[in-house]
């Protein structure tokens, strides 16, 4: 009993089914990175006062570290009652999830969710913290 032919067919079908899955799953879907919007009233207000759009820390840092930062803010507020965050430029912010982050990023659907949905991340925060009313100009 030689069955090289059958076995190779099975292997090829297996490969096509499993590794090919991303290919046919993606067919017809545009390869587009999320476009984030920084045009909420609070950010525009900040721009008027400070001359440029800025986050708490530089953009590159925020991209990777925002979850760790939120975690530190939470620990600092809930455990040490310390609500003041001094950033790398020496500017102070009130450590508050809803009143600081979500005040500027009041367009959760066009900002946080855009990125998270693209990568399948589902932060569990919104079960307790209230999402901002969508605001953008």
């Amino acid at each position, binding site marked *: *009993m*030689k*069955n*090289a*032919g*059958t*076995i*190779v067919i099975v*292997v*090829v079908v297996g*490969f096509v089914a499993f*590794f090919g*899955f*991303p*290919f046919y*799953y*993606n067919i017809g*879907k*545009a*390869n587009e*990175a*999320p476009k984030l919007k920084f045009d909420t009233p609070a950010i525009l207000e900040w721009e008027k006062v400070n001359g440029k759009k800025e986050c708490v820390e530089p953009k*590159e840092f925020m*991209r*990777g*570290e925002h*979850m*760790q930062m*939120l*975690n530190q803010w939470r620990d600092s507020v809930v455990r040490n009652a310390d609500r003041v965050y001094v950033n790398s430029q020496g500017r102070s912010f009130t450590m508050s999830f809803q009143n600081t982050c979500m005040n500027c990023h009041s367009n959760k659907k066009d900002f946080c969710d855009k*990125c998270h*949905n*693209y*990568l*399948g*991340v*589902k932060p*569990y925060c919104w079960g307790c913290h209230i999402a901002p009313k969508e605001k953008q100009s």
Partner: protein
Amino acid sequence: MKILLPLFAVVALVVIAFVGVQANLQAFFGIVIPYAAVAIFIIGFIVRVFRWGSSPVPFRIPTTAGQMKSFAPWIKQNKIDNPSSRLGVFARMALEVLVFRSLFRNTKTELHDGPKLVYGSEKFLWLAGLAFHWSFLIIFVRHFRFFMQDVPTVIQIMESLDSFLQIGAPLLYLTDVVLVGAVTFLFLRRVVMPQIKFISLPADYFPLFLILGIALSGILMRYFTKVHIVGVKELVMGLLSFSPVIPAGIGSVFYIHLFLVSALLIYFPLSKLMHMGGVFLSPTRNMANNSREVRHINPWNYPVHVHTYQEYEDEFREKMKKAGLPVEKE
């Protein structure tokens, strides 16, 4: 030397990728190498399996752990360990692949005072092997979030189950801990036990170090030195749609991770890792023991011309009668 050589090989791979990224060779490490690696993996895999499949399988191997099917109705057949039907074979193979049943029967041999030879049960290899393979598979499937435009719900459910302890931010994945723990155990097993150390070769250590390197670089970029993950997904989607792009500012740890994964894909069909395909071709696992029901003809038998007794008698009947020999037909 048997251990240091493969260790240096993996370190060299890391250094090559790191230096390459510093020298702005992102397109080489992010596009050329991954494409080549996947092609080598798929073609190499098929060639290896084809060669195995082309070897003739002369007979059934009934030496399996269970009662064979008998004509006597009061002797109970062990339908999974000694199957006589395709369904039984499927069940045996599925259990072997999914829970490593034959490794569960692993024993260790010890010489006690007396002198007395003792065979004991040895489950740690099975446990670590199972933990390693399953967490690898789960991590691999979880990675599909980088490979699909909208992440399917199944994968999101896997992510939330895998991180259900909700430790830290980003959430700690249990499979990351299990994978590193299991690979470390499998490595220490080869170093600590003298008999195992004696029979271990560089080809045994290399995949362990390589997989450990992949896992550690992945963990490094998830929890410690962050990479630009949106950029990673753009790169991967570019590769999949055959219009590759190199987004700026991804970070060198990602290219190291990707290069080690490519090395694993290239190494795969050349090495013992082919047991992934080979397990399905194990003769003691994939054949029904139906030697008494079905006639199996040895595939390399020459066609033998058979001269039956009837033909012999037809040919020599007259001579036999003359010599007084008995014949069946008059």
